[in-house]
């Protein structure tokens, strides 16, 4: 079964194996997103993040959630050597890069804690999942084609421990990622990881930092990457084995 709702300027879809979750649980999942949106949306004048941007609220006086979110974002800035940053070029604090992923993460905890073992949650192109799609098949995630929203570039069976997949691109919302490498030719970057915050942040960082960042971050964080560079795809070995029929001779890591 599946249900959808709008939040954070996009749409959340939740698929579950078996019976649809009850109204009360659905309400709790939706509230996770609304709470984050209320505090962090740059599109709402009354959000805490907008008040910080206008200088009306200092970070010191902000909520624990906001400060720990900012700390998470700064930690990722260090880990990616600045390829990911919670600051816009004009210096305004922008936590969008981690907020959506944190909301997805928390919503997933709500679902699992409610005893639902097989679920798949998509929010604006980020996907987090648990369990399987059916007894026979794993959850299988399509990667959108940056050149045609009606087509898929690849389909990825989510076996094993990887639970999260996120994609960053320049195709939607214009060039919304501030590129740290002006020479980056990457148009879309998909990252598969154990958790959604890692997947989301690294997809953004690699899109921003280019191929050098891809090489470095994919190894460092043991994640799988599928990137679109021009008309070519760039893919990490384990993922390549999953999405192509070619014999893979590369040594496994």
């Amino acid at each position: 079964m599946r249900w959808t709702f709008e939040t954070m300027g996009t749409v959340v879809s939740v698929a579950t194996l078996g019976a649809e979750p009850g109204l009360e649980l659905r309400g709790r999942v939706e509230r996770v997103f609304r709470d984050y949106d209320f505090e962090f949306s740059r599109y709402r004048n009354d959000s805490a993040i907008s008040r910080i941007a206008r200088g009306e609220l200092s970070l010191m006086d902000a909520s624990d959630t906001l400060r720990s979110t900012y700390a998470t974002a700064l930690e990722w800035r260090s880990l990616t050597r600045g390829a990911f940053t919670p600051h816009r070029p004009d210096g305004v604090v922008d936590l969008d890069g981690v907020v959506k992923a944190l909301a997805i993460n928390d919503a997933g905890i709500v679902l699992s804690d409610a005893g639902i073992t097989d679920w798949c949650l998509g929010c604006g192109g980020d996907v987090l999942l648990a369990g399987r799609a059916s007894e026979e098949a794993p959850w299988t995630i399509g990667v959108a084609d940056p050149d045609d929203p009606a087509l898929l570039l690849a389909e990825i069976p989510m076996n094993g421990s990887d639970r999260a997949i996120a994609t960053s691109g320049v195709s939607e919302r214009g060039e919304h990622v501030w590129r740290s490498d002006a020479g980056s030719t990457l148009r879309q970057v998909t990252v598969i990881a154990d958790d959604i915050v890692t997947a989301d942040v690294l997809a953004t960082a690699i899109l921003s930092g280019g191929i050098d960042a891809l090489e470095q971050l994919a190894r460092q964080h043991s994640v799988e990457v599928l990137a679109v560079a021009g008309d070519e795809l760039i893919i990490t070995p384990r993922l390549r084995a999953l999405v192509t029929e070619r014999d893979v001779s590369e040594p496994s890591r």
Partner: protein
Amino acid sequence: MTVRGTVGGIVASTAIIIIAWQAGQSTAASNGLRSALPVGSTGTSTATTPNTQASTPSTPATTPAAAAPSSTTSSAAAQPAPAAPSPAKASASGTFQGDAIQTPFGNMQVALVVASGKVTDVKVLQSTNYAQYSIQVSSYADPILRGEVIKAQSAKVQMVSGATYTSQGYLQSVQSALDKAGI
């Protein structure tokens, strides 16, 4: 040139290795190697700054090395690479030891392990501190063509990962079609 192109494609911007390879081959200019790289080649260096530092002093170092084959008193040459005298074939296999070259930071020497025309390993026989930063055996992620990916069918997937779409963009997306179908 096939092998040279492959080697270049794999070691790409690793300036030190290109220089050492030049020493063994003595013909290919580093520019030629670079221009032979496939577009989107992922051979990269993880540490930009040390790499830049290492490549700067390598320019004077190539002069004696490149001149070595024509000189009877080669000072830098160790064992010439076996593949050097004849044009290498795409199926070449074996370990190819490059000449030792002198740089202001110390001697540099590498050996390439080639299996069926593809470099599978680069062994550093002598290196400077700078070189350790800039050597990367092969890229972790490979470039592939779209056609190599199994054609994806939306009927088989439950969710779509894509660049953040707006509520409006969602309407045109595969995700929206999946949600409508309620699969």
